[in-house]
């Protein structure tokens, strides 16, 4: 699925990563140890943990896109790091559970 599909759902994009880049499936989690253990390479990561370490974990396990939930403002240092590492960052005020419902309904995951 293309990153542009997330934009079409109204999620805010913060990075300059190409929206033609793709992801496959999703993982939801806020504890980085568990995210590292269970997320699969290529997944969209849905998390409330808006933190530099989230980007570092995404780089390590080949997560191309992170969607921060319950928050639509992302600090500039996180955006800079994500741009540098070519990780796309989206955000929304919605809750993780509602994001997943929406992604399933739209057959994005």
């Amino acid at each position, binding site marked *: 699925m293309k990153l542009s599909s997330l934009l079409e759902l109204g999620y805010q994009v913060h990075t300059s990563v190409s929206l033609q880049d793709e992801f496959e499936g999703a993982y939801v989690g*806020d*504890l*980085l*140890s*568990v995210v*590292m*253990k269970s997320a699969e*390479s290529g997944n969209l990561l849905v998390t409330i*943990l808006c*933190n*530099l*370490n*989230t980007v*570092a*974990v995404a*780089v*390590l*396990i*080949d997560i191309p896109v992170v969607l921060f939930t319950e928050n639509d403002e992302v600090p500039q240092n996180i955006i800079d790091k994500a741009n540098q590492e070519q990780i796309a960052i989206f955000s929304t005020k919605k809750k993780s559970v509602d994001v997943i419902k929406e992604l399933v309904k739209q057959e994005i995951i």
Partner: protein
Amino acid sequence: MSSFYHKHYTILPNDYFNAGSASSDIKKTLKQLKVSKDIIKKVSVASYEAEINVVIHSFGGSVDLHIVNHTLYLQFTDSGPGIDDIELAMKPGYTTASEISRLNGFGAGMGLVNIKASADEMTLISDPNGTILKLKFFLHTEDANEII
């Protein structure tokens, strides 16, 4: 056939900003060496967890990456204060982490558990003067041949 590769990284205490930079560089190195994806994932997860442990819990330390023949070694060394009870520290969910590490997404008591599950062999030695964590990963023969 024998081969040898070595790289050393310093890990600073409480430096959440740079936490993971050694593991990130180790991952890039393994990619350049054309190590297979499944091994890179296992090494990356273990390395990152161990690096974060040094950042959160220690007075500072380092990690050394060695690749010798068909085996990859990571050795994390720090200068204390040591782990009181290793058996307890290995229990899933047990944590002594501070509020700040929890705010950074860690401190759930899963680090050592994840490390043990990822590495082929793990040795943990600790006293108040410091902790040494040795991890061993067996490379696929074709990976090892590529590196040489």
